[in-house]
């Protein structure tokens, strides 16, 4: 690897891409949040892993965005606002990594961000799918009390924000500030974690922005594509951590894996898939957490992660 600065078996990386692609095809999610930690585990410096994974996501989200654009599933108005926020956030995130590398703690911040994000997402998914499985076993879902007429505190707060804007494609109206701020947050995470941010953006769009699901996926991919283009470019010029060779090998592996995974997923039930994915996410999180908790074999390391 010319940028990662070490030699790793091509077939191992190809296989890694294949496994993550298989999981993304199997579970219907992207593999960004799994790819970076796995690359770190096989010896790629975390800063190179995160930056190269962003590059790989550019390739991966290109075909997805195009497919959704053709189906009319992209809300460009919303996507552009999220994108502006994402570009600002991504640029900010790259500068944060630059400062942290200079201070010597970039690796620690990347790892701890993963522990928190994977922990929250994994735990939430696990509980949700467990509840769904139990419901299917017989118990009806608890009845929710609906109080008509009185909007929630969250809805009132959203309505009070300035620059209210209509989004006809998604059928919602709220302040332009909301997607901008959310875009900034996802952009920062994309730069630090080397992920597209879809696993945060999709729930945010569904639950906070109340967008319809078919528009959420296309718009999220559109935003991810451009956010990752920005992150890749900024990482390349600021930190010199983008390894094209690594990104292309992963891409080829993950594309093939995704095709196999997608075919395999038809044989499994949705809740079983979800609980399995939650377990994988929690195992990866546990592994990273252990590397922070257990005494390392060496108490010295190179500054900047190399």
């Amino acid at each position, binding site marked *: 690897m010319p940028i990662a600065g070490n030699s790793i078996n091509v077939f191992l990386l190809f296989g890694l891409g294949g496994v993550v692609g298989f999981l993304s095809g199997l579970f219907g999610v992207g593999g960004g949040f799994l790819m970076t930690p796995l690359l770190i585990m096989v010896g790629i410096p975390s800063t190179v892993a995160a930056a190269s994974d962003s*590059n790989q996501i550019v390739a991966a989200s290109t075909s997805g965005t195009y497919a959704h654009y053709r189906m009319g599933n992209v809300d460009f108005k919303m996507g552009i606002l999220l994108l502006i926020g994402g570009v600002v956030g991504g640029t900010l995130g790259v500068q944060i990594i630059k400062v942290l590398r200079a201070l010597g703690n970039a690796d620690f911040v990347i790892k701890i961000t993963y522990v928190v994000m994977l922990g929250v997402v994994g735990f939430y998914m696990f509980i949700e799918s467990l509840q769904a499985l139990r419901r299917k076993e017989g118990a009806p879902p608890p009845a929710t009390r609906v109080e008509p007429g009185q909007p929630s505190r969250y809805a009132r707060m959203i309505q009070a924000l300035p620059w209210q804007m209509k989004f006809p494609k998604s059928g919602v109206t709220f302040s332009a500030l909301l997607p901008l701020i959310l875009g900034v947050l996802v952009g920062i995470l994309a730069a630090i974690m080397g992920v597209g941010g879809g696993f945060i953006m999709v729930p945010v769009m569904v639950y906070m922005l109340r967008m319809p699901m078919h528009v959420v996926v296309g718009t999220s991919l559109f935003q991810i594509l451009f956010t990752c283009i920005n992150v890749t470019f900024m990482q390349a010029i600021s930190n010199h951590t983008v390894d094209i060779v690594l990104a292309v090998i992963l891409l080829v592996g993950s594309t093939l894996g995704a095709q196999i995974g997608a075919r395999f997923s038809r044989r499994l039930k949705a809740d079983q898939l979800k609980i399995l994915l939650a377990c994988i996410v929690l195992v990866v999180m546990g592994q990273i957490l252990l590397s922070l908790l257990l005494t390392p074999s*060496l108490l010295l390391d190179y500054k900047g992660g190399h």
Partner: protein
Amino acid sequence: MSKQQRFAILAVVVLGVLIFIPAVLAGSSSTGLTLSPPVIEMGTFFKGARLTVIADIPPKTQTVMEVVGCEANEHLMRKGRRGGLYLNVGELEVWGVPKVYLVMSSEAGLLTGRGAEYPWGLEALRKKLNMKGDIASGEKEQLSRDFIRLKESEGLYATLPGAIKMSTGAAGVTQIQGSFSLPAKIPPGTYTVRLVVLQEGEVKEVRQAQFEVKMVGFPAFLAQLAYDQAVIYGLVAIVIAILAGALMGFLFKGGGTLSRPC
């Protein structure tokens, strides 16, 4: 042809001979050491390399062979526990240390036990380390040991007691052969191979030769582009990714790696 022209041609020939003969002999036995290969090329599939050093030595002598990289200052972080988690807690600088140091000997005792008192080997190198930064009194000993272990874990420092093979030729000349395993992480640059010949514990002769490790082909092109033309490299990375994604999408009819966001 005038006298001046003949003199000019002769001068060019002599100069050519003076320039080319040492170049041809570099890496061969002009220094009493034969290095194979004299140049190590780091190509696309470089996984490390093996460097073989052969030399003839007087009978009843012992040898120590070193591969020494150029000196550099290493910037390090020391890890410590804060709030139950291990993170970098202080900065260190070690200056004037070789990037690579591999050593082997004909007799194990030249590098182990009392052999550690000689001016070669990892223990001698450790004692010479100059460190500054966040070091409390009495910590230098442990930190210098950790530094050597860090380098050993990367394969950049290694000690191989008794690894030099010796054989006696027909004319009674002793031939030695050392085989060094150069790690995949070896930095490009010029390296020195040093052979120390000893008799009854005393240094009789020191021979030196050099070899080069250089990046070639696609990795060299990419590394140069990434560091010297970062803007172009960034744009190339994006264009390659978009084209690769479009191609994969076309091949799999829009399926792509991520049909849904990550």
